[in-house]
Each structure stands twice: as structure tokens, then as C-alpha cells.
């Protein structure tokens, strides 16, 4: 199949996700699609797979224009899309999942399970996966589930397979297996579009590449003509330097250690050690799936640690009880405000007071005036724009909601703040006012750990930056050593630092 996408543009509301991008893939070609989070890769692929139509632009296959692509039509054209997130039903068997929507039938409205089982097993065996097709999907581990997703795409002969980050849950041996399958299919003339953040993978499997940045086309060419460093630079562009918030609000880092984590291991992070001093901002970064999410929640006692210990400002922490962690002087702003932060039915005032109630408020009763004053203070300090603090929190803009969540934790007057993606999904103005608050906290002598994957945030905030790659620490950089290219290289596994 020869695919050509011409002058594709797509907007979601005011956000232009893809701007005039042209893109082509030849027969038997593995094409790497590169770009940072939000660069427009997934949007472009969703347009190709018919999930939604482009605003402008055409899709041509083997020289013929395809009008109004739908998922069904894409299937008929033998285009398969392996999504990043797993789309499997846990309570069905492997083969039932693989044939979902395309079952073999027998007379009498029956499903020909025997035929499905045989066919599915054949595909799984050809992949050397070692997975039995009659197992329940719930009994598989994440890597096996990802293999089943891939097997589903191989079930019916395909001509173009789109893989969006297919290796996030796979280990090196499994990735090698996947690549062997891909090479074999390529020899049969199947084309691939391969989306990944991991440079070594792109460079070992792809023939050609296209780079997108901020929804625009940047460059396309043959992989053999560039190296990993050049690719990383294309990906992030010339980084623009903004005024440093940290220079405007300087903090003195004392020798007083406020948190000391030793040999932490959990579900997806291993043997992580670090310490944070008063006045210091430590940024922990890594790609999706690198273990940063789990590390953040584990540090607060919200998920369990398998191994390791954490010493807080007042001695060792009991990591099994969130309230005790809070009372030992640690506050945490969780990621994903909508799911983990806001209480949508509660007023702004109570959203603001909640953590204080739990950790510091020793009476049974709530004093309305006290809570109203508490909110007025927060409002002034954080610049929260509200009508009345008795309105539901959902009446606020995302940035103002996030300020309320932040202020909820500032009520604790903790010694250490853990902030997990504190500026997720809010506009630039609100981001900067949150950076300012974080820098001020450090200036007051508090320790701050910020988890983020956005470079401008790392650049603005960090005194030190720890980078995770596949659950392990791949580098700890001091402020003067931090560069966007460097961080990208450490988080994609291009470079690794030998650590003591």
C-alpha cells in the first residue's frame, strides 16, 4: 500500500491540533512518527484510521482519494490501528477479544469458537508469544496484553499497521520479538507507522521518519541520514529561554534535609534514592510509563512501597496512612485534577479547607466564619478569581480550580510539598502564577518535589532534576547541567549516566 496524507488540518475548539501536515508511507516501509506529547501524532493517526474527519486535507491510498474515512472503511482497506492504551475486555478470552466485532459464524446465529480459537492460536504461535488463546485476558500481564493487541492486528491480513507506543509495557526481549515479527511482515510488503518516544527503538526498526512539533510538519527523511541527537533536536526545536522565575525569587538551599528516600522500589520503579533539602526544588521527570506516576503516589503513602524507607522532617514516615504522612509535615498535590483533586459537588470553600480539616482541625465542628476567612486569605495569596466561595468548584476555570487545590495543601503549612504535574491542563498564564507560588514556597525554606514531563517547567523550577527511564534513575542533573536535549536523551535511554 502507498499512503499519502495531503495538507491535513484539524482543530478541536480553539486548539489547532494538526496544521497543514503532509505525510506519506511507501510499500514495505517502516515509518517512524516522532514528536513530543501534544505534537499531533495521535490526532493525525486518528484521522487516518477514520476516528474523526480532518477539517481540511485528503487521504490517498494507492493514488485514489478516500472520501470520508470511517473505522469500518479503514478495516476494509486493511489499515489496522494498535492504540497506545489497551482496548481489551478482561472478562473475555484472548481469542474472543481478538475476533471482537469480526466473529466467524456458524449456522443458527452461533459463533464458530473452534475456528476462532485455532486461527487465534496460529497467529499467537507465529509471534512466538507463548500465550494460550483460550486464557482469560484478566489472567495475562500487561506485556502479554500488549502482545494480544498486536496479534489482533495480525489476525486478518493487513497492508498498513499503525503502532502508537506499542512497547511501553514490553521488556527488551519482547521488544526484539516484536521487531522480528515486524521485519518478517515488512518483507511481505506490509507497511508500518511506528510512533515512539524511545530513540533506540526508532533507530533500530524504522526506515524513514517524520517529525511533528506543535501540530506542524517539521522534517521527513531517511533514518540513515540522521542520528539520535539530531532527531532529538528536531523534536523539541530551538528551545526558547524565558525569564527565570527562580532568579526573580531566589531561595537559599540549607543543609537541613527535609526528606530522605532510600532504595525505594514499587510496582514500576526500582531502587530509587534521593534527598531534598530545605529551600530546594527537586524535579523528577520521565516519559509516560517510566515509573514517575507510581513513585509520586507511593511517596505520599497512597500506593504501597515494596521496598525502601522514607525519612520525613520528623523521622521515619509510616507510609501506610496518608493522614499520618500529612501530619508529619508533607503535603501532596495529586495529578489529574478532575479525577484526584476536585470534589465536584462541594463548594469552593470546603474544597479549600478539606486537607486542613483532616490534619490540623481538632474540633468536631466547623466554624463557618473561620473557613470563609481561610478562603479569603488563600484567594488573596493565590489570586483566585471567584464570585462567591459558596459556588461549586466546578464553576471555576481549570487554572483557578488548580489554585484552589494548591491552596488546600498550603493550609497545612507543610515542610515538604510533593506536586504531581501541578500545571496539567491549564493555560500558560495560570501556569506561571503556579510556578511563582512554587518558587515562593522554596524561598520560605520549604522543600518541594515536582513531578513533570514538561521541559519549560523543569527549566523554570528545578534546582536539581532526576530523570527516570524504565523505572530506574538514569541521571541526576544539577541546575547548570540541565538542557532540554540532555533531559530528552536521558529519558529516552539514548544516554545513561553511571550512578554511584
Amino acid at each position: 500500500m502507498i499512503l499519502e496524507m495531503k495538507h491535513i488540518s484539524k482543530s478541536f475548539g480553539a486548539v489547532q491540533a494538526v496544521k497543514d501536515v503532509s505525510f506519506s508511507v511507501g510499500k514495505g516501509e517502516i515509518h517512524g512518527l516522532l514528536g513530543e506529547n501534544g505534537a499531533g501524532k495521535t490526532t493525525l493517526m486518528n484521522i487516518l484510521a477514520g476516528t474523526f474527519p480532518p477539517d481540511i486535507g485528503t487521504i490517498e491510498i494507492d493514488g485514489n482519494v478516500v472520501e470520508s474515512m470511517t473505522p469500518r472503511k479503514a478495516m476494509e482497506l486493511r489499515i489496522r490501528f494498535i492504540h497506545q492504551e489497551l482496548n481489551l475486555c478482561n472478562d473475555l478470552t484472548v481469542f474472543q477479544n481478538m475476533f471482537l466485532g469480526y466473529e466467524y459464524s456458524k449456522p443458527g446465529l452461533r459463533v464458530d469458537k473452534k475456528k476462532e480459537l485455532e486461527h487465534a492460536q496460529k497467529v499467537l504461535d507465529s509471534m512466538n508469544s507463548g500465550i494460550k488463546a483460550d486464557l482469560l485476558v484478566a489472567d495475562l500481564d500487561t506485556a502479554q496484553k500488549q502482545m494480544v493487541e498486536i496479534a489482533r492486528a495480525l489476525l486478518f491480513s493487513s497492508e498498513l499497521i499503525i503502532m502508537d507506543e506499542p512497547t511501553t509495557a514490553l521488556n527488551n526481549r519482547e521488544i526484539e520479538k516484536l521487531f522480528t515479527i515486524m521485519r518478517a511482515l515488512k518483507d511481505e510488503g506490509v507497511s508500518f507507522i511506528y510512533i515512539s518516544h524511545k530513540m533506540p527503538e526508532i533507530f533500530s526498526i524504522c526506515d524513514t521518519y517524520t517529525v511533528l512539533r506543535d501540530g506542524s510538519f517539521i522534517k521527513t527523511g531517511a533514518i540513515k541520514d540522521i542520528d539520535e541527537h539530531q532527531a532529538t533536536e528536531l523534536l523539541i526545536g530551538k528551545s526558547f529561554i524565558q525569564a527565570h522565575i527562580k532568579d526573580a525569587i531566589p531561595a537559599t538551599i540549607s543543609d537541613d534535609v527535609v526528606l530522605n528516600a532510600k532504595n525505594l522500589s514499587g510496582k514500576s520503579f526500582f531502587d530509587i534514592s534521593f534527598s531534598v533539602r530545605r529551600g530546594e526544588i527537586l524535579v523528577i521527570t520521565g516519559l509516560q510509563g517510566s515509573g514517575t506516576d507510581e513513585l509520586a503516589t507511593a511517596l505520599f503513602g497512597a500506593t504501597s512501597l515494596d521496598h525502601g524507607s522514607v525519612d520525613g522532617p520528623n523521622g521515619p514516615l509510616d507510609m501506610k496512612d496518608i493522614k499520618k504522612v500529612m501530619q508529619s509535615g508533607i503535603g501532596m498535590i495529586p495529578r489529574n485534577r478532575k479525577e484526584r483533586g476536585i470534589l465536584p459537588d462541594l463548594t469552593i470553600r470546603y474544597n479549600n479547607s478539606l486537607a486542613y480539616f483532616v490534619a490540623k482541625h481538632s474540633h468536631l465542628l466547623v466554624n463557618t466564619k473561620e473557613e470563609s476567612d481561610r478562603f479569603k486569605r488563600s484567594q488573596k495569596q493565590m489570586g483566585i478569581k471567584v464570585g462567591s466561595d459558596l459556588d461549586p468548584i466546578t464553576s471555576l476555570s481549570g487554572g483557578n480550580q488548580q489554585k484552589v487545590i494548591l491552596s488546600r495543601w498550603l493550609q497545612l503549612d507543610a515542610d515538604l510539598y510533593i506536586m504531581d504535574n501541578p500545571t496539567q491542563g491549564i493555560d500558560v498564564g495560570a501556569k506561571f502564577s503556579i510556578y511563582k507560588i512554587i518558587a515562593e514556597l522554596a524561598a520560605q525554606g520549604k522543600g518541594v518535589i515536582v513531578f513533570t514531563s514538561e521541559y519549560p517547567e523543569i527549566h523554570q523550577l528545578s534546582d536539581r532534576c532526576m530523570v527516570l527511564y524504565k523505572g530506574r534513575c538514569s541521571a541526576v542533573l544539577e541546575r547548570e547541567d540541565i538542557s532540554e536535549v540532555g533531559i530528552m536523551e536521558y529519558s529516552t535511554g539514548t544516554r545513561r549516566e553511571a550512578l554511584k
Partner: protein
Amino acid sequence: MKGVTLSREQVRETWRNITGNYSHWLSFVLLLLVAIMVSPSFLTWNNITNQFVQGSIVGICAMGMSLIISAGMIDLSVGSSVALISGFGVLVLNSTKSITLTLLFCLGAGVIVGLINGLLVTKGKIAPFIVTLATMSAWRSVINQMGQGGPFTVDNSMYASFRNIAAGRFLGIPHLMLFLTGITLLTGFIMSKTKFGTYIYAVGSNQQAARLSGINVNRVKTLIFTYAGTLYGLAAFLLASRLTSIQAASAGMGYEMDAIAAVAIGGTSMDGGKGKIIGTFLGVLMLRIINTVLIMANVPPFLNGLVTGVIIIVAVLAQSNKKGK
């Protein structure tokens, strides 16, 4: 003065506010008007107190149900728990001859019944619907076995003094009316003035966020069931006093339905997070008024449930319309 003229938008907004936040008052007044039209004698003191007396025991249970639903849970075991405790309560009364001990027994048994539900939900990690379905079945069975088909009847020696608790009046006001009003005030106070009340709404609104704010979600849920259980205990005590003879198979039958209905009609969201105690209080009264109107309008008693059912659906539909724009 400027700004006297309201724009269409403002009028609509105000109207939405009234129908949104005060819908239970609105429907209460409407229903009351209907009742007065059907029978002008509805507004006599005698009838009003009678409405309260009829609704108070279920009403006390509905207050517990209000907390449970506000936290996003449900309790189906109300009727069986009340039957269990009141049956045993009569036995305690007959053997100890002490009303105080009987009251303490009923409240204590309520705490235990509530704790069992709460611990199964939190420690056992079983859905509240299933837990309380099981306890509903279990408690009814236990009390049936104890009664062996016969009633639990208060001894003649205790009859007059015990019956006076539910049937008596204080300054012309029936005791039951005072009990319901007292429990409503207490529950309303807990929900709106204490930290615990805020935690209940928080758990019902977003359990994940509540947990990450340091709230011990399991403890909150257990306490809610325990408080509700204590109210069932009080309701059981009052029921025994009112009837002085408890039929194991039928006592408290359908209380869970009436309690859930009162909470729903009163404007509490079935998804949790939202709801006012005063709404539940009005919901209890509305159920009584509907009942009375149907009798006065000579609607066949068998159709009573149909009308109640329709009214519940209408009440909940009105809520979901508000939410989904």
C-alpha cells in the same frame, strides 16, 4: 435605581436556581395545595400531627438513609433491622421490666447491626447493595425463627408506661413528632456543621480525591452505617412502643423503600455528594401527604404503590434533567 429590569437570561437563571436548590420546597407546597383542595380539613392540627405520627418512624430511618445515599451507598436492610431489634427489644422489656434498659438495648443493637454492614462494605470490600441485601434477608430470617410465627407482645404490666412513649403527647404535641424533629435537627447539624458531614459529601462526590486529601474513607463509611444503624435501633424502640406487639414477618416491611423514596423525593442525588436533610424531612412528609390524598380521593388502596412509584421516578427525572442540562 438601576438594574431593576432583569434580562431574560437572569430570569431564567433565577428560575433555575429556585427549581434547582429549592425543588423539594416547591413540590412540597404544590402537594400541600393539592391536599387542601381535595380536603379542606387537611390543615387541621389534628390531621397535621397525625401525618407526623404516621411518618415519624420511617422518617427517623430515612435520616440514616440520607447519610448513606449522600456518601454514594445504599441500604436495603432497614426494615429487617428494625423488625429484628424491635422483636428482641420486646423480649428485653418483658424480662427486665426496664424501659431505659430496653432503649439502651435497642440503640446498642442498632450500633452492632450498622457496624456489621459497615465492616462488610469496607473491610470485606463488598458493594453496599449486596451486603445489605444479604443482611436484609438474614435479619428477617432470624426474627422469624425467634417468633415462630407468633407476635412479640409487651407484657400487661409494662403496657401502659411503655406505650405512652410513642402514643403520648407533650404540651399537645405527639412524642413521635418531637422525636422525628429532634433527629432531623441532629442529622442536619451533623451534615452541615461538622467535619464529619463534609467528609460524607466528599466521599460521595469523589472518593479518590477524598482519599488523597487524607480522609479515611473506610472509617467514614463505617461510621455512616453505624449512625444509621443507631437510628434504626431508635425506630425499632418506637415501633415496639407504638404497636406493643411486633409481628416478626411483617414489622418494618417496606421501610427501606419508603426511606429511599423520601431521600430521592427530597432531592438527594442517588450518585452521592449532594443532598439536604431538610429535603429528606419534606420527602417523608410528602410521602404521607400523597398517601392521605389518595385515601381521601378514594383511590383503591392497591394503586397506592403505583402512584408512589410514579412520583419517585418524576422526582429523580427532574434531578437528572438539572444535571445533564
